[in-house]
């Protein structure tokens, strides 16, 4: 809506109060856990406020002798970065192929329909067979198993998102390049990919975040050495005696990528999240 439309459709007092309440409701829980993460456990349990801030929870979580959290962060980073790189390659190739080459309808429509169905089905339904298969292959409790499964769950989103970007490319550009002696693969790499760069960034940000956040697969396919950040947080919350302070500190650390990307990649994220929905 342009400025003029905003003036004809200006929010009333009720609307303003509602927006203010919504903002408060969204931000409030983050503030709450942030303050809890800087409290001594005793200050949390006594619901002290004001309190003396301490970094001891973070020190415990990151450097404590009984905590693997630094290793969990490393696992999460490796898995998220590699699965993102792979899903962008596989997804861009597939999306471009579906756009550029005339596949029989049963292949193109069948592939897209299946990605959609798989995207909608809870991943819990496939965890049983995955667990069995990765055990047989000797890949249980490896980062490799997490990387390929994360590529798989992020592939539908990547393909659907990149498809909309490739479709914007006029076929004449690619045909002209091929007339000039540029092979089909070179046309993809040198012309189509640079044009679709905003789409690649959007898909890459989302794939990284979804992999970093992913919980059920990591919970079932890893044990102590390859556990990721969400699994570690769940351990803090699920132990016989819940470690609230460490859980809070670990949770705050786990939100760092999301907060960074919210500021750096907002444009891409909003288009990525809403593109499929609006078009």
């Amino acid at each position, binding site marked *: 809506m342009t400025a003029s439309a905003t003036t004809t459709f200006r929010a*009333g007092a009720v609307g303003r109060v509602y927006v203010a309440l919504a*903002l408060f409701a969204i931000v409030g829980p983050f503030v709450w856990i942030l303050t809890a993460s800087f409290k001594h456990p005793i200050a949390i349990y006594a619901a002290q406020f004001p309190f003396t801030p301490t970094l001891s929870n973070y020190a415990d979580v990151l450097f404590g002798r009984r905590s693997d959290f630094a290793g969990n962060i490393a696992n999460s980073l490796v898995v998220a970065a590699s699965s993102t790189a792979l899903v962008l*390659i596989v997804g861009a190739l597939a999306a*471009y192929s579906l756009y550029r080459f005339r596949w029989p309808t049963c292949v193109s429509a069948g592939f897209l329909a299946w990605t959609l169905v798989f995207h909608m089905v*809870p991943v*819990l339904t496939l*965890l049983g067979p995955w667990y069995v*298969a990765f055990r047989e292959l000797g890949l249980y409790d490896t980062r490799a198993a997490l990387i390929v499964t994360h590529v798989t769950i992020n592939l539908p989103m990547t393909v659907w998102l990149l498809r909309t970007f490739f479709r914007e490319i006029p076929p004449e550009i690619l045909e002209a390049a091929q007339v000039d002696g540029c092979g089909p*693969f070179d046309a993809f790499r040198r012309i189509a990919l640079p044009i679709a760069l905003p789409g690649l960034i959007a898909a890459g940000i989302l794939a990284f975040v979804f992999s970093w956040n992913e*919980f059920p697969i990591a919970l079932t396919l890893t044990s102590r050495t390859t556990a990721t950040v969400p699994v570690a947080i769940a351990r803090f919350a699920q132990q016989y005696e819940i470690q609230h302070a460490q859980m809070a500190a670990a949770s705050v650390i786990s939100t760092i990528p999301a907060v960074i990307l919210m500021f750096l990649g907002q444009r891409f994220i909003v288009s990525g999240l809403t593109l499929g929905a609006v078009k």
Partner: protein
Amino acid sequence: MRDAAALPDMSPRRPGARVAIGRLVNRSFRYWSLLPAVLLFAALTLYPLLNLARMSVSTITFANGAEVWTFTPLRNFAALASDDVLRPAVVNTLVFVVASVAVEMVLGVALAIAVAGLSRAKRWVRTVAILPILVPPVAIGSMWKLMYNYDFGIFNQALVALGAMPVNWLGSTSVALASVIAVDVWHWVPFVFLILFAAVEGIPPDLLEAAHVDGATRAQMLRHIVLPLLRPAIVVAFLFRAILAFKVFDEVFLLTAGGPGTSTELVNLHLYKVFFEQNRLGYGALLSLAVIAAIIAFLLVSRRIALAVRRNADS
């Protein structure tokens, strides 16, 4: 003459192999470009699906770390009939999906319309709204676990300060499901907002201005212009949420893990427990197939709804 002869030397030193590979890569590109995705999907979704079918008619036990498969076609169906948790899990899941999606739609649409009427705050709200969607659901679970805590959570602190009795948000059978639904609402209202906000921004301003000039009130514009134009986006957001709400697992696993009793047990939590706590791979496979079949049926029905709505909107 010498210059002309030197021309081929402009190409890389040993052109043979690399050029040949490059040509091969290019020529066959149209065939291999789709291959990685198809192979990955075949190996990690189609093959597991077939395996699910095989597992669903088997009993799998572990002996000395090796799997022992026995063919027991009726045993898992019998287990389905005697599964006491399944019924509450299905009922809770339906309640969860219907209640959380309904509330999310109302709050999200209202927020999108209210924010569109603001001038400067727009960008702020949009930035903040992204946050719940991007942070790990597990972190959301632990956030709310802290806030719902009976002894020191913010809600009970507020209740006690107001002189009311504290509530056992996650530990009482009558409140727990509502508490879990509230977390899902908090998590996903921003998503509905983002989709609807993009749609509101896409409404041609002339329409509203013309109505304004004709003396239409804000309520009239809302009812007769804005909401009808938003209908396709509302349907899309609704279908997205309805289907994705079925996938919920992380937050509930952290908050209640299905308890107390079966009061927040959901189908996904039950699947996890059958597979990985009770180690009943065969029965779990049968349940998984049932869930997949239900999702596909829902997709087919919702496709029809979406098409019907689009036809109505066009006519």
